[in-house]
């Protein structure tokens, strides 16, 4: 039997029972759509999370020092400087940048905007690729303690839609004080990670921010290891430095059983959140977070994928069922075809072709439905819509496999019929 005859015969047979064929196709559509949507949604969510986590790079080690460890504004400034120097001197560490963050507002005339003020040092610029001042300059060593500000792209656009912001004076409202700041630069737009924009910041010198907010300032240090391989060693060295620096506080805290120290990765990350009153610091390795996250995503993909695959399996069983019914109904037809010269494989291929057509049709439609629901899901969850080639291949290939797998038994059964008995079948 020619391939064209096979296809024509299969389509004609399916056209004879349109509703039945449509329902069989639907079973596969649901299964394939579930698989495709799952893979696509998880890929999108993963891409977003990874971008967020990896925004600072895989070499990044985040150190949080909690306000309890710091006694006064002056102490905070001293500590920040000393700690930065000590951490930077630790083995395998190439760069340490202290960052303080405060909510505040910025106003110009009648215009006002709530935003985050980032207290940074000049090295902040080196943490990121493609991050540079579009106009003016970034914060300089000599700016320490000065009331100068560098604007994120959105802030500059909103407050100075027409004028050049550089040289203008803004009023910054922070911790109950209104302080004039002179704008010295505007940064290039960094875009967004997920739904978080990175252009709504106003950058000020760290020492200036610490002076305004006082001692209860949560400070983050971002350290970079010399390379991706030495992240663990760098983190260990950093912990050594921190343990020595906070020896007194650590000793106190260690007396309480819930305190968590020296752990790295997510454990410390989450533990720090729970026990921040007791822990003076936490060290988070970006790489470990990413790995842990990837691990959990793999598990999630596997679980969701299995559930989706089961629905595809159910669709396949539906096809097998319908094909078995079809074989019984068409017993006489099989006998007739055999009598006029159909070989076993011609009969087998005829029924296989029907199952394949159902499955491939279901596979292609399912791919469309799956992508559509993944796209809707990505709008809803505000993560990037990721289309990958492999889920498409997997979906179509898998549905073809389902067709062959579940169509084979009925088809072989049909091909094994005895022509005379088949002809006598009522």
């Amino acid at each position, binding site marked *: *039997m*020619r391939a*064209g*005859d096979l296809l024509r015969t299969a389509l*004609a047979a399916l056209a*004879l029972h349109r509703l039945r064929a449509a329902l069989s196709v639907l079973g596969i559509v649901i299964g394939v759509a579930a698989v495709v949507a799952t893979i696509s949604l998880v890929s999108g969510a993963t891409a977003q999370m990874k971008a967020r986590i990896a925004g600072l790079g895989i070499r990044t080690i985040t150190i949080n020092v909690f306000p309890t460890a710091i006694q006064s504004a002056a102490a905070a400034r001293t500590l920040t400087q000393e700690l930065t120097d000590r951490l930077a001197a630790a083995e395998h560490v190439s760069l340490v940048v202290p960052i303080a963050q405060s909510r505040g507002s910025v106003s110009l005339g009648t215009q006002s905007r709530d935003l985050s003020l980032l207290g940074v040092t000049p090295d902040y610029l080196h943490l990121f690729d493609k991050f540079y001042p579009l106009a003016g300059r970034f914060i300089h060593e000599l700016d320490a303690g000065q009331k100068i500000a560098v604007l994120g792209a959105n802030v500059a656009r909103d407050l100075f839609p027409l004028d050049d912001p550089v040289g203008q004076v803004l009023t910054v409202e922070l911790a109950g004080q209104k302080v004039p700041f002179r704008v010295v630069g505007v940064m290039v737009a960094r875009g967004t990670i997920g739904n978080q924009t990175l252009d709504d910041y106003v950058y000020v010198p760290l020492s200036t921010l610490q002076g305004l907010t006082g001692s209860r300032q949560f400070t983050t240090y971002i350290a970079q290891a010399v390379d991706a391989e030495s992240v663990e060693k760098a983190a260990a060295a950093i912990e050594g430095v921190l343990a020595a620096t906070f020896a007194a506080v650590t000793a106190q805290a260690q007396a309480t059983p819930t305190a968590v120290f020296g752990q790295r990765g997510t454990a410390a990350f989450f533990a720090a959140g729970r026990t921040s009153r007791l822990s003076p610091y936490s060290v988070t390795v970006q790489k470990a977070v990413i790995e842990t996250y990837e691990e959990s995503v793999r598990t999630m993909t596997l679980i969701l994928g299995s559930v989706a695959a089961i629905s595809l399996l159910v669709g396949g069983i539906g096809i097998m069922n319908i094909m078995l019914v079809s074989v019984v109904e068409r017993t*006489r*037809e099989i*006998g*007739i*075809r*055999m*009598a*006029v*010269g*159909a*070989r*076993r*494989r*011609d009969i087998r291929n005829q029924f296989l072709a029907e199952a394949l057509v159902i499955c491939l049709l279901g596979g292609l439609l399912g791919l469309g439905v799956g992508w559509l629901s993944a796209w809707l899901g990505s709008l809803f969850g505000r993560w990037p819509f990721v289309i990958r080639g492999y889920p498409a291949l997997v979906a179509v290939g898998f549905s073809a496999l389902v067709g062959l797998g579940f169509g084979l038994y009925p088809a072989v059964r049909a091909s094994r019929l005895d*022509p*005379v008995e088949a*002809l006598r079948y009522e």
Partner: protein
Amino acid sequence: MNPLVELRKVVKDYPMGATSFRALRGVDLAVGEGEFLAITGPSGSGKSTLLHLMGALHRPTQGQVLFEGQDLAELSVDELARLRNAKIGFVFQQFHLLARLTAWENVALPMVYARVHPAARRERALAALARVGLSAFAHHRPNQLSGGQQQRVAIARALVNNPKLLLADEPTGNLDTRTGQEIVELFVSLHGEGRTVVIVSHEPEIAARAERIVILRDGLVQEERRARG
């Protein structure tokens, strides 16, 4: 005449649960090339079984069936299918047409399995339909045709691959007497064109149109006689 089909001591059992039913109990029969043979006998005498064995639809339990001297036992299931496709045309009592196909598509069915190019099929199918006098009904479906017309479509289908042997199992059994007569005359004229024809029928008038009549009883050849001469 060289035998086209030859049966030697053919026994055929059908399984019936734990036991089996012996339909043929040692039949020797040869059908010569170009012969018109009628097989007759009462119900259950083994007529259809004999025809199915001649047509390579069944294998004997014992004995040999030779087609053009070739022992069918030596052929695989697929080779038997090819033999049926190329050299044998079947006509059945119930016509056995595919309901969803038109007359010409039904006639073209054997060509599908002969891998005839699709473009050539239509012409050959229409020629076969013309031979049985049904040119005007090529695009009718079986349910739009009378019993006699349906049987003519079935005969056209049996003829379309130009087989050596034409086998008909009670071809008039579902037709009224007059239509049945027309169908028999069609077989007579096909035989006149040089085809080997074997008809199974329990109606003496039908059998009488053949050259030779074989009467079966209880799975054995009871009598053989010449008919038209």
